[in-house]
């Protein structure tokens, strides 16, 4: 029975090894093809919050683009379980031990990742934080080299102002929050509430419910609070999965048209819903640009060039009217 076990294990590892044998070679070629080689080869580990959201796919495109433009090798690796803080900490620790040139990190928690990032700094491995904030000094001399992100509060406010306008400046609005402890969506939610509370005739009827990490959980949450949703004239959701879950719930309850939805981020089904008029507007970040700028700023830092401590990557309000304009098309493609 032992030989059976060893045989199985051996075959697993051989398959795993074979699957990746090609990888290092391929990325080696890519770095050779790049712009004139830097003084020494740079390998960057880029750690997103997850790998399955469309948003992160776009970030990956930007990251890889920057990698080949700047002639650096990119390792793209997110936690196996989406949004798992402990696993993201382990990944940072592993890349620090491996001795990569630098790390680009979208922290899942503003505090839990502080220690690992400091430990990377102690090993002289610079870190650029992107997408979501991390506590501590991000001024180049501090714990991390730069912070590259959408100004989420302003983006949330933009969505809020549009929602207020589209329901005629009066009535009930509802906020379905995303996930506890996630800094970027917290900011968007605050920005939305800023805009909603600035209007005396707008009443926020719910702002303490969390959608959870996946669309089906968001949908279930929205259906659980459907009585409040029915009372609302407008609903705001702060990310892709919560927007999609809310959309599914509105469809199921046939509330489309009665309740106006402003969401955040884009994906093919969300854009289709926007075209069909089921969604009023989507606040869309520029994830490709974010990925690109994050890698670029870290490479600059490694090459001793000055880097802005905070880089805003911008957000755009996409509506049925401007979805086919050149500016929006470029971001959405």
């Amino acid at each position, binding site marked *: *029975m*032992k030989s*059976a*076990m*060893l045989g*199985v*294990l*051996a075959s*697993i*590892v*051989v*398959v*795993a*090894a074979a*699957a*990746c*044998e090609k*990888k*290092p070679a391929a*990325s080696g070629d890519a770095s050779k093809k790049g712009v004139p080689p830097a003084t020494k080869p740079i390998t960057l580990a880029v750690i997103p919050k997850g*790998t399955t959201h469309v948003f992160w796919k776009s970030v990956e495109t930007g990251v890889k683009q920057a990698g080949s433009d700047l002639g650096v090798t990119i*390792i793209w*690796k*997110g936690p*196996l*379980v989406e*949004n*798992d*803080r*402990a696993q993201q*900490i*382990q*990944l940072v*620790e*592993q890349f620090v*031990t*491996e*001795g990569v040139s630098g790390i680009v990190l979208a922290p899942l*928690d503003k*505090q*839990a990742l*502080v*220690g690992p990032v400091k430990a990377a700094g102690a090993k002289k491995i610079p870190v650029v934080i992107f997408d979501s904030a991390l506590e501590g000094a991000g001024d180049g001399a501090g714990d991390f080299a730069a912070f590259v992100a959408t100004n989420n509060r302003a983006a949330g406010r933009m969505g809020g102002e549009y929602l207020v306008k589209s329901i005629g400046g009066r009535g009930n609005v509802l906020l379905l929050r995303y996930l*506890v*402890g996630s800094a970027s969506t917290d900011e968007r939610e605050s920005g939305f509430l800023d805009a909603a509370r600035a209007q005396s005739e707008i009443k926020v009827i719910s702002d303490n419910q*969390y959608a959870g990490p996946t669309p089906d959980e968001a949908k279930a949450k929205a259906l659980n609070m459907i009585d409040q949703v029915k009372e609302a004239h407008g609903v705001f959701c702060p990310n892709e999965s919560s927007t999609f879950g809310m959309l599914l719930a509105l469809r199921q309850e046939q509330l489309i048209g009665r309740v106006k939805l402003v969401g955040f981020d884009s994906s093919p089904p969300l854009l289709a819903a926007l075209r069909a008029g089921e969604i009023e507007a989507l606040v869309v970040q520029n994830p490709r640009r974010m990925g690109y700028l994050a890698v670029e700023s870290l490479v600059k830092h490694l090459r001793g060039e000055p880097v802005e401590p905070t880089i805003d990557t911008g957000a755009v309000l996409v509506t049925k009217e401007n979805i086919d304009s050149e500016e929006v098309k470029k971001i959405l493609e």
Partner: protein
Amino acid sequence: MTHSIAKLLRLLGPVLALAMVWVCFALAVGPAFTSWSNQRLMLQQTAVVGVAAVGATLIIIMGGIDLSVGASIALGTMVIAALMQSGFPGWLAALGGVIAAAACGVLIGALVTGHVARVIAVVIAVVLAVTTWNRGIGSIVTLGWSVHGTHLIGGIVCCGWAVLVPLAGRVPVRIKPVSPFIVTLGLWGALRGLAKGIGANQPIYPPSAGGLDRLMRTSESGISSIVPPAVWIMLAVVAAASALLHFTPFGRSIVAIGSNEHAARVCGLRVERTKWRVYMIGVGCAGLAGVLQFASLTIGDPTTAAGYELKVIAAVVIGGASLSGGRGSVFGAMLGALLMTAVDNGCNKLHLDNWVQEIATGVIIVAAVAIDQVRQRTG
């Protein structure tokens, strides 16, 4: 003679499996995998699952199962963070986390043995503790001893907890026992809900990590300059559980119950008492794993350790335990946990995509369970 050879082979199985995986990754990755600093990291990153797997081994040897171990770990981090937020020193908060998990273990044990009085006692004690929480239970336990009337209530609850549960043990009312699979499947969700409830759906950010973060870090000098304290804790827990299993009557009765519960009962072993004690110790280990998880996170995270129940059970089975009870090794379970860390670490070093890594890990888990089946048929 043949028996002891079979036993040796069983112990050797996980050692060889781990060695195989290690050598394969060493060949495929090279020094980045074999460096001492990477070995140290792998040991450190195994500690949480390793410690939880030791407790789970005891439960599985007894013929039980704990599907709620991930939730217990999350609950542990939340209790620790909540205690720290109300001013407890780190070590006492850690103790609180372990006790909270052990209380969950008592609850599981009581449900599994159908001891309804004990179930009610645990629930009452928890409700009392929660309702008097804001009235100074903290300062009693932190030895503040500033006795206001309300603080007294806290003290009474603490004593009540110590008295209530054993007293309830004497009440001979029993309902039909519920299978541990069902009990812990229920608690898998319920304990996670409780963890979320403690923080009102939020993670808890204590003012500092209270020195617990040092558990996951190597220091400048002393034994923790070799590997972080968490690894020593794991090894100590393995040694203690191993000694418990092999050298105490209690340990032997665990194996006896797992081998044949009816025979154990006929022989006069106190099956119910052993059961709830093993669940208390086993889930207490999950609480200790929660301490280590907190040391790594430095926050209380109600969503952490999702899916660890499967990692832990896989580690126990890879380590040579039989899911039908009566057989298993805590040392093997630690090796099983180490094997899974090695797979994770090696796959990362090879820069595999997540989906490839997940398939590889899944195949290893299925292989381990399949091997368990083959082993049962042949041995």
